[in-house]
C-alpha cells in the first residue's frame, strides 16, 4: 500500500513534533492561579430539591439580608442522598480547595474530618453567640469532640418513629399504641392473622440499620444505647442479643423485596394499605405533607414501642474548614445558621424542627410542634444510620453486617460483626 501524499521531510517532522510537545507542556503548566481575597461565601451541601432546597433558599435569604456585602455561592451537589457530594467534598479537601463552609451530619460523622485536621474549632463562636444556652445540653454534648465543637447544627430530625396506616390497624382491631417491642410483635401477629402479608415495611440496607438502631434503643434504654458508641456498653452483652433477636422477629414480618426499594417506597407500602407500619425519620411527615396526606386520616405516628421519652437525634450542620476562603464570610454564614431567624426560615420550609429551644412553636405544624415538645424534654440519643453516633467507617461496617444478616439471619454472627466493628472503630 502506498500513500499518495509525499512524506514530510525529516526537518519538517521534527518541527511538528517539537511544536506538539511544547504545546502539551504549556497546557500542563497553565491553570491554577493564586488565591485571592474574595467576597464570595461558597457553601457546599446536598440540598438540591424539594423541602431541602426550599429550606436552604430560606436560609440564604436571611443571610443576604444580614450580610449584604457578601455574595452567596451555592455549591450544592445533587444525588445519592449526599454520597456524591461527600465524594466531591473529599477530593476538594484533599487538594486543599475547601469551600467556605460545608454540610455534614452533626456528631460522629465529623470524626473523620476532625481527625484529618480539616475542620476549625468553633467553641469560641458558640460562646460568643450564646449557643451553649439556647441549644439543648444533650445536643451540645453530642457535637463536642474531645472538648471542642466543630459544627453549627441547622435543624433536628427524630429517627425513632413508627408511621402507621390507621385503616389497616382498625381492620385488625388494634386501637392501642403498643408499649414494648413484644407488644408490637403481638400486634403484628394479629395483623398477619387478618391477612396483612407484610405488617412492617422496610427498604434497603440503610433503612434496616435505622430499624435496628431503634430496636436497640427500645431494649437497652437511652443510657446503655449511647454507651454503645463510647465503649461503655458491651456489644456482646445478653441485652444486645435480646434486641437482635427482636430485630430478627421484626424482619420476618417485612416485605421480601426490601433490598430492591428505598425509603419512599417503603412508606408507600403503608399509605397504600399494603403494610401497617414503617419505621423512619420524621422527614416522612414532610413527604406526607407534599403528597397532601393528612395526619390522623391517612397516617398516624408514634415513637417506636419501648422508646417513648427518647429522642433519636440526627441533625444537619455546617462547618468551618481549615483554609476556608473568606473566613469572615463563612463565620457570618454560620451565625445565620445558628440564629433564631435563620433556623425559623430553614426549618419551617424543610419540615424539620429548630435546634434552638427558644423557637416559636406557632410557626410550625402539628407534627413539628409535637416533635419540638419531645425534643425539649426527652432523653436525646444519637442516631447511627444518620451519622450522629459513629464515624462513616463504623456505620459502613454495621450496614454491611446488617445487609448480610438480611439473607443469613444468623444472630450470633451479626452480634460478633457488630462487636468487631466497635473494637475496630471506637475511640
Amino acid at each position, binding site marked *: 500500500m502506498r500513500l499518495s501524499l509525499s512524506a514530510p521531510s525529516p526537518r519538517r517532522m521534527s518541527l511538528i513534533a517539537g511544536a506538539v510537545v511544547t504545546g502539551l507542556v504549556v497546557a500542563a503548566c497553565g491553570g491554577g492561579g493564586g488565591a485571592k481575597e474574595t467576597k464570595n461565601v461558597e457553601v457546599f451541601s446536598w440540598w438540591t430539591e424539594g423541602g431541602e432546597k426550599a429550606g436552604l433558599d430560606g436560609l440564604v435569604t436571611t443571610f443576604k439580608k444580614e450580610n449584604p456585602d457578601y455574595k452567596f455561592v451555592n455549591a450544592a451537589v445533587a444525588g445519592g442522598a449526599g454520597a456524591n457530594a461527600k*465524594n466531591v467534598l473529599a477530593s476538594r479537601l484533599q487538594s486543599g480547595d475547601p469551600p467556605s463552609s460545608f454540610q455534614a451530619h452533626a456528631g460522629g460523622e465529623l470524626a473523620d474530618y476532625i481527625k484529618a485536621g480539616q475542620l476549625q474549632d468553633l467553641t469560641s463562636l458558640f460562646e460568643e453567640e450564646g449557643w451553649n444556652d439556647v441549644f439543648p445540653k444533650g445536643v451540645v454534648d453530642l457535637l463536642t469532640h474531645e472538648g471542642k465543637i466543630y459544627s453549627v447544627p441547622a435543624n433536628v430530625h427524630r429517627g425513632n418513629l413508627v408511621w402507621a396506616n390507621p385503616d389497616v390497624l382498625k381492620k385488625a382491631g388494634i386501637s392501642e399504641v403498643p408499649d414494648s417491642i413484644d407488644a408490637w410483635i403481638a400486634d403484628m401477629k394479629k395483623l398477619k392473622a387478618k391477612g396483612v402479608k407484610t405488617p412492617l415495611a422496610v427498604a434497603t440496607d440503610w433503612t434496616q440499620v435505622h430499624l435496628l438502631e431503634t430496636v436497640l434503643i427500645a431494649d437497652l434504654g437511652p443510657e446503655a444505647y449511647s454507651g454503645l458508641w463510647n465503649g461503655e456498653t458491651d456489644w456482646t452483652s445478653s441485652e444486645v442479643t435480646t434486641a437482635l433477636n427482636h430485630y430478627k422477629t421484626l424482619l420476618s414480618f417485612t416485605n421480601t423485596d426490601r*433490598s430492591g426499594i428505598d425509603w419512599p417506597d417503603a412508606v408507600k407500602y403503608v399509605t397504600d394499605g399494603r403494610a401497617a407500619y414503617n419505621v423512619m425519620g420524621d422527614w416522612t411527615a414532610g413527604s406526607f405533607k407534599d403528597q397532601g396526606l393528612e395526619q390522623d386520616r391517612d397516617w398516624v405516628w408514634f415513637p417506636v414501642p419501648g422508646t417513648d421519652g427518647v429522642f433519636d437525634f440526627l441533625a444537619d450542620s455546617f462547618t468551618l474548614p481549615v483554609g476556608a476562603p473568606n473566613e469572615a464570610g463563612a463565620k457570618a454564614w454560620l451565625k445565620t445558621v445558628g440564629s433564631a431567624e435563620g433556623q425559623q426560615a430553614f426549618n419551617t420550609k424543610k419540615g424539620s424542627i429548630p435546634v434552638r429551644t427558644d423557637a416559636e412553636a406557632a410557626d410550625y405544624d402539628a407534627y413539628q410542634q409535637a416533635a419540638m415538645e419531645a425534643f425539649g424534654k426527652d432523653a436525646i440519643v444519637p442516631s447511627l444510620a444518620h451519622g450522629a453516633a459513629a464515624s462513616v467507617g463504623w456505620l459502613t461496617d454495621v450496614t454491611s453486617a446488617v445487609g448480610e444478616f438480611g439473607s443469613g439471619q444468623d444472630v450470633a454472627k451479626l452480634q460478633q460483626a457488630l462487636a468487631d466493628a466497635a473494637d475496630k472503630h471506637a475511640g
Partner: protein
Amino acid sequence: MKRGIRSWGPGLLLVAPSIAVIAIFVYGLIGYNINISLTDQHTGLPATEYVGMDNYTALFGEDRFQHALTNLATYTVVFLVGTMVFGLLWALLLERGVRGEGFFRSIYLFPMAVSFIASGVVWRWLLNSSQGENATGLNRLFGTLGLDFLENPWWSDPKWGMAAMALPAMWQLTGYVMALFLAGLRGIPEELREAARMDGVTEFQLYRHVIFPQLSPVALSALIIIGHMSLKVFDLIMAISGSIYQTEVPATYMWTALLSFDYAKAASIAAVLLAVVAVVVVPYLVHTVRAERRS
C-alpha cells in the same frame, strides 16, 4: 550518528507525549495506588507507617471480601457462558442466510450502544423481586401470562442473585459477541466448506471439524473482552441494587471503602482487582504479540 537521530528522533518526539502521559497517569498511579495499599492509611489522616502485606491478608481473611469474590465469580460465569452460547447461536442462525439479516444484526447489536447505567435503571424495575399481587416488571409479566411458577426474587435471592444480575449484561453484550462470531464465520473461505461437502461430510461434521476450529481465535478474543468487562463490573450493579451487601463485588466494595475514608483498604481492593484482570488479559496479550511476530 547524526543521521541516526534524524531517522528515529522525530518519531520518538511525536510519541513522547503519550509515553509520558501513560507513564504518569497509568503506571505512575498504579504504583501510587500499590504504595497506599501497603500503608496504614485507614482514616483521613496521612499514613504513619508501612504495614507490608497486612491489608491484603486482612482482606482475604474477611468474610465480606470472600462474599464479594464469590458474587463476582457467579456473575462472571453466567455472563460469559450466556454471551458465548447465545452469541454463537445467533451468529450461526444469521450466517445461514436469514431474510432481513441486516435488520436482525442491528437489533441484536443495538443494546451495546446503551450505557450500563441507563439500561441498569430499566432492569432495576424489570427485575423487581415483588411477587403475586404486588409484582411489577418481569414478575408481573409472568403473572399476567399465567406463568406464575416463573416468578422469582431475581437478584434478591441470597444464593443465585448474582446470576440474575448477569441477565442485563448478557442482554447488552450478546449482540457484540454475535458480531465477532459472524465476522469470524464470514472469514472462512467458501472453498473449505465446498471441499468438505465434496468429501461427503454431514452438516454437523462440517461445523465440528471445519468451521469451529477456525473460530477459536475469535472465541478467545470474545472471552477476553467479555471476561475483563465482567471482572470490572461496577456501574450495572450500582444502577440496579446500589452498593448493598447482597450484591457486593470487589469494585463496589472499593467504592464503599473509599467513601468511608479507608484509603488503604480501597487501594488494596483496587490492586487485587487489577491483578485478577491481569491474570486474564496478560496471557492473551503475550499470545497475540507472539502470533503477530510469527506472521
